[in-house]
């Protein structure tokens, strides 16, 4: 048999955010502005889009559980169908944008791109954008787990309607967002006014590009992002809030020990861990090992070499609920070669 022709993968950007935060404004910009790319847009509500474009598709959010041994694995059945249909129009668009409903959990959307073979063969998840209303996010974050999920999951966060909030308050909000999500890019915007290349085509799930995306990732001190008093607070209400745990070790990592440890962590705590990212110095390897996960699903690969002047420090960031920082740190340290 001869080899299969390589299928180009269409990038997919997922757009989350509460009703009224400004998602539709951003969608309309993507559809109307001359940015040289044609987007197929999957929306949850037709009425909001002011444009009659035959590449705008309505979705009925259908969450399917997978019987694949992953207890938390849910996917969006409607997306699998719609992407299969869109692929029949090959060459008529360059990228796909998926809008989710205001209260949606981004995880089933992201997991769809890791789980379904046909979707994975034809598309790649490019990034998750959260549009948040700067005026209301402070309060919603305290009360709504959906808002926490969306922020914690995002690769890019648009702190929209920034002109309605004074700069000190914006700093405070950004600080709060950072406790949930240390690796997202945060942009302050008005009416989603931002160059589209800062939100689209980010390669946020591309192992090769994770490093380039997060120049500070390697250098940040883990304690910067620690969620101090909440972590030490035994109050179970606080424990159920999302936080991030960033841990680093200097000793090279034993690949087999790490595999077994992280596999066990994701298997037993994957339901509570929204995202994981890591850059690891594997013993005996010149290249950096990059690791990422969404709940229980994960992947890792050796990417480029370590920069000459960089300390080969291994770092791992978890975003989730009920994270036991001390146990994670101890477990990671035990992976030393």
């Amino acid at each position, binding site marked *: *048999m001869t080899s299969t022709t390589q*299928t180009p993968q269409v990038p997919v950007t997922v757009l989350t955010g509460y009703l009224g935060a400004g998602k539709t404004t951003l969608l309309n910009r993507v559809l109307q502005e001359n940015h040289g790319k044609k987007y197929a847009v999957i929306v949850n509500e037709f009425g909001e889009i002011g444009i009659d474009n035959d590449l705008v*598709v*309505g979705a*009925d959010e259908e969450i*399917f559980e*997978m019987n694949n041994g992953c207890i938390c694995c849910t996917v969006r059945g409607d997306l699998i169908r719609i992407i299969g249909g869109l692929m*029949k*129009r090959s060459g008529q668009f360059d990228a796909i944008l998926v809008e989710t409903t205001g209260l949606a959990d981004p995880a089933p959307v992201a997991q769809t791109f890791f789980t379904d073979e046909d979707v994975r063969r034809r598309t790649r998840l490019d990034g998750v954008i959260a549009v948040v209303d700067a005026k209301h996010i402070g309060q919603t974050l305290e009360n709504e787990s959906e808002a926490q999920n969306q922020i914690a999951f995002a690769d890019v966060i648009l702190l929209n309607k920034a002109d309605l909030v004074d700069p000190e308050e914006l700093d405070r909000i950004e600080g709060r967002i950072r406790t949930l999500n240390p690796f997202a890019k945060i942009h302050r915007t008005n009416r989603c006014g931002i160059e589209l290349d800062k939100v689209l085509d980010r390669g946020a799930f591309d192992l090769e590009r994770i490093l380039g995306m997060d120049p500070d990732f390697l250098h940040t001190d883990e304690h910067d992002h620690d969620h101090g008093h909440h972590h030490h607070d035994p109050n179970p209400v606080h424990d159920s809030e999302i936080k991030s745990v960033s841990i680093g070790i200097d000793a090279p990592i034993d690949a087999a020990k790490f595999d077994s440890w992280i596999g066990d962590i994701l298997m037993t705590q994957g339901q509570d861990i929204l995202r994981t990212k890591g850059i690891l110095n594997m013993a005996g390897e010149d290249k950096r090992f990059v690791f990422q996960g969404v709940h229980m699903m994960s992947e890792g690969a050796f990417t480029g070499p370590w920069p000459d002047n960089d300390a080969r420090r291994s770092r791992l960031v978890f975003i989730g609920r009920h994270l036991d920082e001390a146990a994670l740190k101890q477990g990671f340290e035990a992976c030393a070669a």
Partner: protein
Amino acid sequence: MPEEPQLNERARTLTFGEYVVGVAANGRVFGVAFGDGTIRIIDSLTPDAEPVSTKAHNGAALCIAADIEAGAFLTGGDDGKLVHTSVLGETSVLAEHKHRWIEHVTSHAGSAFRVYAVGKDAIVLSKKAGGQTRTFSHKSSVAGLAINPKGRRLAVSHYDGVSLWWLASKDSKPTLLEWKGSHLQLAWSPDGMHIISAMQENALHGWRLSDAEHMRMSGYPAKIRALAFTRKGQFLATGGAESVVCWPFTGGGPMGKTPAQFGHSGGTPVTALAANPKLDIIAAGFENGAVVLGQPGEERTVTMVPGGTGPVTALCWNPEGEILLAGTETGEVHIADFRS
């Protein structure tokens, strides 16, 4: 060194460059639906003639079936239209659902039912033009439609099971065959005794209708994208692996038996299947574009198309079983002619 496989001398390739969504046969003609909304009608008696070509949909065609009228086809598209295309290429819109997609269509010539799906509904068109339509609603989106061989019952796959409806009955309650998970493509056994669904997971689920006994066939390395019963129903040929996995349905069914296989490709999964209507031969298409003919458990296969293109998306025999059409994602249509 083994010889590099060539295009079989009985096969020819037409190149259209658009995604082949599906192929159906109706009498002596084949209908081929494309991703740009074009329908082409290929006459099996004069396969060298230029096919009749018509633009049936504004966007992509998403599905095709033979119509109940001789030589005609039904297609659904992402423009929300159900279109009837005659043997001469004349189109008429039978139904339109703005902003929706029509992803599934089927018909039964003997009982003269046309059925299509839009969202969570399966819609049955009456035989007479302008007559009453009936809508069968489900809790989740329709993922597959299949009318039983006698043309009386409709099986609809969806999340958490399959609903069976009587096409002519006024009783609007379906028989629900429940099984957790997302059920996709369906196949009825030729005797109408079994209904099988390919699932989102790499498994098949089936029911014996006489007693609603469940069958579960798993262990596949990949998603099962094709199902075909052999003409007398001795075997169910399935995709989902790098060879065609054929479950025996004789002598009490497949449970506890080892499936027969054929057509091991050495690295590329099966994407399309069609059982010959006259002989115990199965055509199999692969992700690398190859098409082979084989029989369950027989090592020897005949290569019709060597591959090297996009995946095979559709395979169809004419009713005499003498001509095979294959279509690919990259827009090739292969015609193999077995008349002497």
